[in-house]
């Protein structure tokens, strides 16, 4: 019998108590991970805010030189990068998503708790890497979108862009792991009775956001990998003189960049959809349409990236297509705004600070949405692009829409998270100063933009007529700064001497309010049974939810039942803490650091740390990765194991990763200005390799079938055969690469060679990882540690292996057999 995982003591009264520093460093509790995200985001928000203030000070008067031009560039770059990647996303996903997803769906934790901790530590490492330029090499200074070819080493020498590239790659990895985790959690770990159409709207937003993350981030990853190769290995993915085009970067970046807007906006919509019904004491108006709207916004968001690129000259057909999709997205967004208004209409309103911020969001986001529709029109966009009008627009969306929502979420869920109320009086001051400061700062930018003030401009002449509005904006920015100062003070006061929060201070509607404030480590002593939408409201008041409102209107306080706590919670199994996520992240950080500062000993040490951590995580639980999933909790996914959903989600994300690589190869293969081209490819050799890889897939499924039959002998034989065939494929690839080198085609020879080597090399790396994975399983099989009960371990590795196989089917066809077909 396999050894059982270590169990946490489950008698902790609150998730915040106990464990000390080590407890926090090794925690995999989703709530503690959320709090760590919160701490890091608040720290970086102070940085990003101060950078914004410095920008406004510089623009206070014409011909100002408070900052040098280089520092100014660095500050607006880091302001954008910090706020998007280190503040808004960590707050929405890492903090609110992490804390609320298990609580709102009635689960005890996320699907992959250790992966969750790894996501946080990687995000922190990314934040540190992005800021190490303060110490060495300077801060990144090419804008938050890092346009090529400004980011090439020829134009931006030094380390600044290197920090940016490596930092964002690590940050992207963290975010993809989070998306994978959340998607699996929401699909598979909902409480009994919680169908999709009974989920809180915030869960809908997180579900769809997770899907967006998985299909949007790979494009950015590929764009960054190309840039990394350009800067570190002298390739020319974005260098026009080599036949390449910097516009490739814009496509890859905005393929990520526009869905990214909705990765930030959809959770914000989810927050407002929770806060507005609670403080209106009405169910959310048009719940199904709200859910469908979220799906439609996400779907359309992937087809609008071109509206960021009208000025690049994509042609009338593409411009029209992107204009239409960009305008269409206003429809589901409008549905949401009208649904919120209809929810408020006729409600029994309680004007709390959380509700203030929610109402503020509806107004400010609408303004940002309206200016967004203007950008959907290509001719108008050509007038507005790269002007301060765009700065006004996206701040109305991202601050007016998203940050107002985050603030609303703070005032709403803070009592649940900390067990203390935030001060309402200070909160109202915070709100009004934010409204005034925000609008005074950003509304005049519409006018400045239309008057021709370009964004990112370091300074301006006195004769431009921009001085007074710039001064007004700077005053507004300082008012906003004071508002944030009050917010930090409010948080501090709440933590030190805040009024204790009851379990359900707002008469809430969803399941998190059924737990104590703050919740225990195990969230729910007894897993809830969900009988309808607004699950907790139904538990409190029955299906006739209006009785709750009626009771309030007649002056009778609703009789919120206190959550029942059984005397014995020993039966609850919580996954044990783990140090490996932290060690693995430190290893990744060391690898990134060493690569940038050319200190390869650190790279090797980091790599050793990463490998040891992965091995450690693999064997941490005797049952090969099983994280002691709650035996009480049957998956809400039709019996499909969470790990299977997880690996399929990863494979889905990989589809976009390889599609970006393959597209680049097809686009670039005929654009080389010199050197060999596709005719160098060796069809007989790769035909043999293809045969070998296809047969390895056969051996893999035979191994699985043998395992499922309990046939240990054939399990080992087929597994060993799969590993052997994988190694033969890799040897063929090594032979092919070395023969190309001998024939004078290296990585940097031309566009064909670099896009070929990167595409086929990444596939080879996937094969190598698969061979390692299967080798571990083979060892487990040889030592008698596999078998019928662990057939899923084989199936998961097999799914990955078959995916590598189908990718090769595509590569073999598009790269090798279509070599004679000219590229675009």
């Amino acid at each position, binding site marked *: 019998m396999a050894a059982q995982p270590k169990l946490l003591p489950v008698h902790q009264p609150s998730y915040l108590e106990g464990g000390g520093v080590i407890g926090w460093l090794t925690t995999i509790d989703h709530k503690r991970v959320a709090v760590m995200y919160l701490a890091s985001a608040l720290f970086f928000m102070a940085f990003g805010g101060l950078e914004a203030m410095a920008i406004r000070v510089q623009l206070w008067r014409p011909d100002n030189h408070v900052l040098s031009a280089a520092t100014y560039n660095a500050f607006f770059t880091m302001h954008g990068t910090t706020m998007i990647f280190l503040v808004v996303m960590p707050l929405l996903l890492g903090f609110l998503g992490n804390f609320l997803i298990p609580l709102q769906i009635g689960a005890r934790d996320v699907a992959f708790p250790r992966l969750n901790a790894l996501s946080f530590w990687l995000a922190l490492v990314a934040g540190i890497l992005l800021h190490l330029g303060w110490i060495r090499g300077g801060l990144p200074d090419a804008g938050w979108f890092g346009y090529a070819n400004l980011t090439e080493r020829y134009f931006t020498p030094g380390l600044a862009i290197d920090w940016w590239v490596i930092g964002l790659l690590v940050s992207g990895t963290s975010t993809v792991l989070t998306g994978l985790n959340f*998607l699996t959690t929401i*699909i598979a770990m909902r409480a009994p009775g919680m169908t999709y159409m009974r989920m809180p709207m915030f869960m809908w937003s997180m579900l769809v956001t997770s*899907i967006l993350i*998985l*299909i949007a981030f790979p494009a950015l990853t590929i764009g960054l990998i190309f840039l990394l190769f350009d800067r570190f290995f002298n390739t020319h993915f974005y260098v026009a003189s080599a036949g390449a*085009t910097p*516009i490739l970067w814009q*496509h890859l970046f905005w393929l990520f960049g526009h869905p990214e807007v909705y990765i930030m906006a959809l959770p914000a919509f989810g927050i407002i959809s929770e806060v507005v019904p609670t403080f209106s004491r009405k169910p959310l108006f048009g719940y199904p349409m709200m859910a469908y709207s979220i799906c439609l916004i996400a779907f359309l968001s*992937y*087809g609008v990236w*071109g509206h960021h690129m009208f000025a690049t000259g*994509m*042609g009338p057909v*593409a411009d029209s297509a992107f204009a239409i999709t960009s305008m269409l997205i206003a429809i589901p967004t409008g549905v949401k705004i009208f649904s919120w208004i209809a929810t408020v209409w006729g409600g029994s309103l309680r004007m709390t600070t959380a509700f203030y911020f929610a109402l503020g969001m509806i107004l400010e986001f609408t303004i940002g949405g309206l200016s967004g529709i203007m950008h959907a029109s290509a001719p108008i966009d050509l007038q507005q692009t790269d002007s301060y009008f765009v700065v006004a627009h996206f701040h109305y969306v991202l601050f007016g829409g998203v940050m107002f929502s985050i603030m609303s979420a703070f005032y709403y869920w803070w009592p649940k998270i900390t067990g203390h109320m935030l001060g309402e009086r200070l909160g109202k001051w915070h709100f009004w100063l934010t409204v005034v400061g925000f609008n005074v700062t950003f509304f005049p930018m519409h006018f400045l933009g239309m008057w021709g003030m370009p964004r990112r401009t370091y300074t301006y002449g006195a004769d431009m007529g921009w001085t007074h509005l710039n001064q007004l904006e700077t005053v507004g920015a300082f008012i906003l700064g004071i508002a944030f100062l009050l917010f930090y003070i409010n948080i501090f006061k709440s933590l030190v001497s805040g009024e204790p929060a009851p379990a359900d201070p707002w008469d809430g509607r969803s399941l998190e309010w059924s737990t104590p404030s703050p919740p225990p480590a195990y969230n729910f002593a007894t897993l809830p049974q969900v009988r309808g939408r607004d699950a907790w409201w139904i538990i409190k008041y029955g299906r006739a939810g209006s009785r709750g409102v009626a009771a309030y209107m007649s002056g009778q306080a609703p009789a919120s039942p206190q959550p029942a706590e059984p005397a014995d919670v020993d039966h609850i199994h919580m996954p044990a803490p783990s140090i490996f996520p932290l060690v693995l992240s430190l290893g990744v950080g060391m690898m990134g650091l060493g690569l940038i500062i050319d200190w390869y000993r650190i790279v090797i040490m980091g790599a050793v740390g990463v490998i040891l951590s992965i091995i450690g995580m693999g064997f941490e639980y005797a049952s090969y990765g099983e994280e002691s999933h709650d035996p009480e909790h049957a998956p809400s*996914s*039709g*019996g*499909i194991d969470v790990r299977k*959903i997880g690996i*399929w989600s990863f*494979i*889905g*994300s990989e*589809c*976009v990763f390889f*599609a*970006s690589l*393959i*597209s*680049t190869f097809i*686009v670039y293969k005929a654009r080389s*200005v010199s050197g060999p081209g596709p005719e160098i490819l060796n*069809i007989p050799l790769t035909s043999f390799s*293809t*045969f070998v890889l*296809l*047969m390895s*897939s*056969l051996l893999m*499924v*035979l191994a699985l*079938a043998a395992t*499922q*039959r309990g046939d240990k002998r054939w399990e080992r034989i087929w597994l060993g055969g799969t590993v052997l065939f994988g190694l033969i494929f890799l040897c063929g690839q090594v032979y092919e690469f070395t023969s190309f080198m001998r024939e004078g085609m290296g990585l940097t020879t031309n566009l064909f060679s670099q896009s070929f080597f990167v595409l086929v090399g990444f596939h080879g790396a996937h094969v190598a990882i698969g061979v390692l994975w299967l080798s571990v399983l083979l060892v487990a099989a040889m030592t008698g540690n596999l078998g*019928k*009960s662990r*057939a*899923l371990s084989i199936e998961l590795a*097999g*799914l990955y292996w*078959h995916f590598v*196989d*189908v990718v090769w*089917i*595509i590569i*073999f*066809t598009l790269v090798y*057999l*279509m070599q004679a077909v000219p590229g*675009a």
Partner: protein
Amino acid sequence: MSDIADAHSGQVHPGAATYLIIAAFLIVLTAMEITVFYVHALRPVLVPVLIVLAAAKFALVAMFYMHLKYDGWLLSGVFIFPLMVATVLMVALILLFTYLSHHLAPIA
């Protein structure tokens, strides 16, 4: 050999005989691809024929070896949606760059 039940999901997976038949199909399809590549008379239809053959191989592996045919709609959805997005992305990028290459100054 008989079909085998997956202990975790209760889904029935095909047995070795089905896997061997699929492997035979994969070999035949790959042989057809290579043949098409070497027959010059087929060059005009090379692209559509190769795409159809590759898609058939892809579908066989996904449906039978990855068990999508047997594992229900959920996993198919988790895979097919991003796959469609990836396909649209590839087509869109190729079309956009085709336009770009026809409207840019030639490479020096």
